[in-house]
Structures are given as structure tokens and as C-alpha cells.
């Protein structure tokens, strides 16, 4: 009994340091944010205003625009990253010479600082877009201004249509060219992470299972559809959830790539918008910012739940026993 009690107190002492930090800076702020969001809170705490901040956010065109931008960002980055990563992982999942070299090569963008990476990409885009535009013009595209893509607020579909002398309604403009550039950088960054995780998933499929399936005559696409993809589905599902959540948090790349330019808000994702409103001069302050952050939290939670509800059932867990 005495030993039990001693063990209890040891456990509490061991847990205390992390518990203090996590309570003070992760749990408590969650409640605090809710409290702040109910106030007219600019530079200083103002009066309680109830749900006014939420109402204002829901009526704000900029907020809805930032959600639209985020939506394009998710659609433009997540499927492409997963598809490319799967392709690479399957190519690497065999006794190949230089396997670890490739692994490091693909993974490196994930660890380098987003700011330095963005600096490089900004330079690259500014040097590459002019010659490519020239080339496009030479091949029958009519581009009125051969602008730099990264500071181009026109939508992708709009840009393509205009280059061919057509026009599209404003709801079909698509993501701005600048946002497309950001998406390229995002895919480049996350590809290595997804590849490594998928490679881990592929290498965990027991070789006996694959052998048995091959003996039964399953090869190529049938082997993939009936054995590999179902067994890989938990990993794919995990990556999908993580990448969607992360896409909603995108900040550094946008801050550095297009932060200073006024692109009519076409690259302001939801998190960037929250930062602008809460911390930039001219923003509406912490009260409004917290309300928007909570709205975003609820939306991400709902989206995650939706993914679990729609896809979760089709994910194959365990060894099928």
C-alpha cells in the first residue's frame, strides 16, 4: 500500500512539468479564447457583447472570401500531394539502389525553414514567369500583361480564358495565379513527409499476403485494388485528415510569398485572415479574431467528422480477423 502511494506521488511529480505547460498554454487558452470572443476587445478589454463578433464575422465578405481561398488551397494541394507521394512511395518500395538517397532528397523540403524556401520560390517564380509567358504568347496565347504570376490576382480559369479571348463569369474565376504558385510550394514542401509515411505503410504489408495474392493470380491493378489499397487505407486516411487540418493553418508561406502585396485578398487563407484581424493595425482586434478562430475551429472539426463519417467506414483496420 505504501509502495502504491509512493508510486502515485512519483507519477504526479513526473507529470507536473508538462501538465503545467499544457494546462496554461493549451487548455486554459481554449476557454479564454471563448471568453475573449464574447467581448468588444480591441487594444484593451471592452464590454461584453455576446455573439456580436460571431454575427459580424458571418456577415463579413472578407471572411467568406478567405474560406473560399482556403477551400481552393485544400483542393489544390491535398489530392495532388497524396497522389504524387503514393506514386513515389510505390516506386521506392523495392530493393532499389539509391533508395535512401531518394528518400532524403524528397524529404529535405519538409525540414527547411518555410521562410528560406519561400524566398527561393519567390525568386524562382519572378525569373521564370516572364520567359514562360513569352513562350505562351509565341504559341498563340494572348496575355495582355505578361505579369509575374506571384503578384497576379486574376483567377487561373479567368487567366486561361482571357488568353484565348474568352471570358468566364466571376464565380468561375478559380484560384488566383498567385495562390496557384503558393500551392506549388506547399506540394513541394509536404511531398516528402507524405512519401515517408506511405512508404512506412507499404513496407508494413506482410510479404506473405502479397505472395498469397500473387499465387491466386492477382497482379497489377487487381493486386493494388484488392490488397494493397485496402491495407494502406488507414495510412492514407491519416494523411488526408492531417493535411486538411494543416491546410487550414497555412501561414508562413503566404506571409512571405505574397504578404506585402495587395492581391485583393486572393491569397489570404483563413489563418492569415485571423492574424490580420487580430494583430495587424487596422484589424478588428483580439475579440473579433477569437470569434473567427472559433468559427474556423468548429468548421475544421465538422470537416474532420465528415471525413470520418464518409470515409472512415471504408478504411480497413487490422488484419481482417
Amino acid at each position: 500500500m505504501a509502495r502504491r502511494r509512493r508510486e502515485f506521488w512519483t507519477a504526479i511529480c513526473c507529470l507536473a512539468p508538462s501538465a503545467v505547460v499544457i494546462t496554461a498554454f493549451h487548455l486554459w487558452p481554449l476557454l479564454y479564447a471563448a471568453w475573449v470572443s464574447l467581448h468588444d476587445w480591441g487594444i484593451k478589454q471592452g464590454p461584453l457583447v455576446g455573439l456580436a463578433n460571431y454575427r459580424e464575422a458571418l456577415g463579413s465578405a472578407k471572411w467568406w472570401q478567405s474560406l473560399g481561398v482556403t477551400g481552393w488551397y485544400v483542393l489544390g494541394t491535398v489530392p495532388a500531394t497524396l497522389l504524387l507521394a503514393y506514386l513515389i512511395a510505390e516506386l521506392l518500395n523495392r530493393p532499389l539502389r539509391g533508395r535512401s538517397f531518394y528518400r532524403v532528397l524528397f524529404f529535405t523540403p519538409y525540414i527547411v525553414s518555410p521562410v528560406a524556401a519561400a524566398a527561393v520560390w519567390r525568386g524562382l517564380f519572378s525569373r521564370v514567369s516572364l520567359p514562360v509567358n513569352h513562350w505562351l504568347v509565341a504559341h498563340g496565347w494572348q496575355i495582355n500583361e505578361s505579369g509575374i504570376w506571384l503578384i497576379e490576382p486574376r483567377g487561373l480559369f479567368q487567366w486561361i480564358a482571357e488568353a484565348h479571348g474568352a471570358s468566364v463569369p466571376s464565380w468561375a474565376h478559380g484560384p488566383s495565379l498567385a495562390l496557384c504558385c503558393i500551392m506549388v510550394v506547399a506540394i513541394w514542401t509536404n511531398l516528402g513527409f507524405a512519401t515517408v509515411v506511405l512508404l512506412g505503410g507499404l513496407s508494413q504489408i506482410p510479404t506473405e499476403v502479397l505472395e498469397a495474392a500473387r499465387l491466386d493470380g492477382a497482379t497489377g491493378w487487381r493486386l493494388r485494388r484488392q490488397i494493397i489499397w485496402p491495407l494502406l487505407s488507414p495510412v492514407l486516411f491519416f494523411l488526408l485528415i492531417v493535411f486538411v487540418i494543416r491546410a487550414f493553418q497555412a501561414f508562413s508561406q503566404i506571409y512571405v510569398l505574397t504578404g506585402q502585396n495587395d492581391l485583393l485578398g486572393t491569397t489570404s487563407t483563413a489563418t492569415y485572415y485571423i492574424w490580420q484581424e487580430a494583430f495587424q493595425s487596422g484589424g478588428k482586434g483580439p475579440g473579433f479574431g477569437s470569434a473567427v478562430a472559433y468559427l474556423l475551429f468548429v468548421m475544421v472539426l465538422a470537416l474532420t467528422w465528415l471525413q470520418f463519417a464518409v470515409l472512415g467506414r471504408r478504411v480497413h483496420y487490422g488484419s481482417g480477423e
Partner: protein
Amino acid sequence: MIAWWRRHDLGTHLLLLPLGLLMAAPFLWMLGTSLKTFEETTNLWPWPAVPQWQNYAEAWRAAPFGRYFLVSTVTAAAVTASVVLTGLLGGYSFGALRWRGQQTVLGVYLATMMVPFEVILIPNYLIVQKLHWIDRFPALIVPWAANVFSVFLVTQAFRSLPKDFREAAMLDGCGHWQYLWRIAAPLVAPSLATAAIFAFLGSWNSLLWPVIVLNSERMRTVEMGLSSFLQEEGASLHLLMAGSVVALLPVLLVFLAMQRRFIEGLAAGLKG
């Protein structure tokens, strides 16, 4: 011929090499541009006629990078050390000991992983402001001094240690602390290393939080320095790239030195 082609997986390499080159291209371009003269930066050809090594000295002088490096290094080192320590202690508590309410507390811990960063950003700023930590090291370090991911990683490692191990050590008169430091810590070292690398990278590469809690010229991280260098009008491309190389180098070296452990630790950590 076909057999030879097959044996060396040439088809696979033919697909992987161009993709790999695309991934590496930005780095090569950065390196090339950082060594160009100002006139050469408008060329499309990525490599200079004569490498201009003095660009690095010039970029280093263009902003107080020495100071930025000091701020970033102190912050990253302190965060990494305390994440390892709190992770080891927390992991021991969850993974090796048995106590009432353990599962509930672990559940609360794991639930906080779902809390998105942007929700706690504003209140954390207000808390840091109330504590008068703005523009000071505690603001950069304390909120990140422990994280659930590391605690969980080490918990999993402790769980995979054989039970009788600890019993035997205890019977030999080994106390909790002695067991933890002398015997258990080396056994869970791989998980601690993974936690350390993630903590270091997360701290070194973060931008949003430092931008919010720091506002003086004296307190700036490398990331902030580089990003304001980047946003200055008229900063020339070759110097910018030299600055980027300088900012990238520490992290890149750490990663290349530990890449095996890092990539495998990541895969192992996700399995748990």
C-alpha cells in the same frame, strides 16, 4: 539488354530522377544565385561564371544576423532541452507507472493535440502580455516547453519495455529516480532523439508566434530577420539567396547528420 535494364531498375530511376531533380532544383538555384554578381541574377542560367563568395559576407553584414542567430539558437536549445526532459518524465508517468486516473489524464493530453494553433494564438498572446514577457525569451520558450506529441512518443517507448525490468531493478533497491536516469532513459533514447529533432525544427522554423510576441529590433529570430530582409524593397536577389543559404545551413546540416534516425523515428512514432 532488357534483362540488364530490369536488373538495374532503370525504368524506376528514369521516373524518380527527374522528380528528384525537381525537388532539388530550388536548392541548386538558390546556391547558384547566391554566388552570382548582381548583373548575372537576371540570367536564366542558374550558375555564375565566377562564384562570388564575398556575397555571403555582404549578406551577413546587411542585417544583424549574428544577433538573430543567437536568439534563435538560445530559444531552440532551451525548447529542445525542456521538451526532452518533460517528455521523459511525462512518458515515465504514463508508460511505466500505474496510478488512478491515468487513462483519463492521458485522454485529456491527447485531446489537446486536436486544439488548432490559431484558436489558442490570441489568448496565448494575451497571457504572455499579462506576464510581461513580450520581447523576452520566456515568451518564445515557456509556451513550447512541453508538448503532448513528445510525451506520447516516450510513453509508447516505455510501454514497449519489458515489465519485469523495472520490478527487478526495484527489488535490487533501485529507486524511481535512479531507475529513470540510469536504466530507463538510455533505453528510450531513440524516442527522445525523435522528440528532440521535432522540437528543434519546430522552434527554429516557427514564424507566426515570434512575429506576434517580439517587436523590438534586438529580439528577432533568424526566420523573422530573413523574412524582413526579404520584404525590404530593393534587396538584391543574390544577397537574399546568400542570406537564405546562411539561414538554412544549420537546420540542413542537423538534418543530414541525423536523417536516418529522423525519418525512421517519424515512421515509428506514427505507428504508435
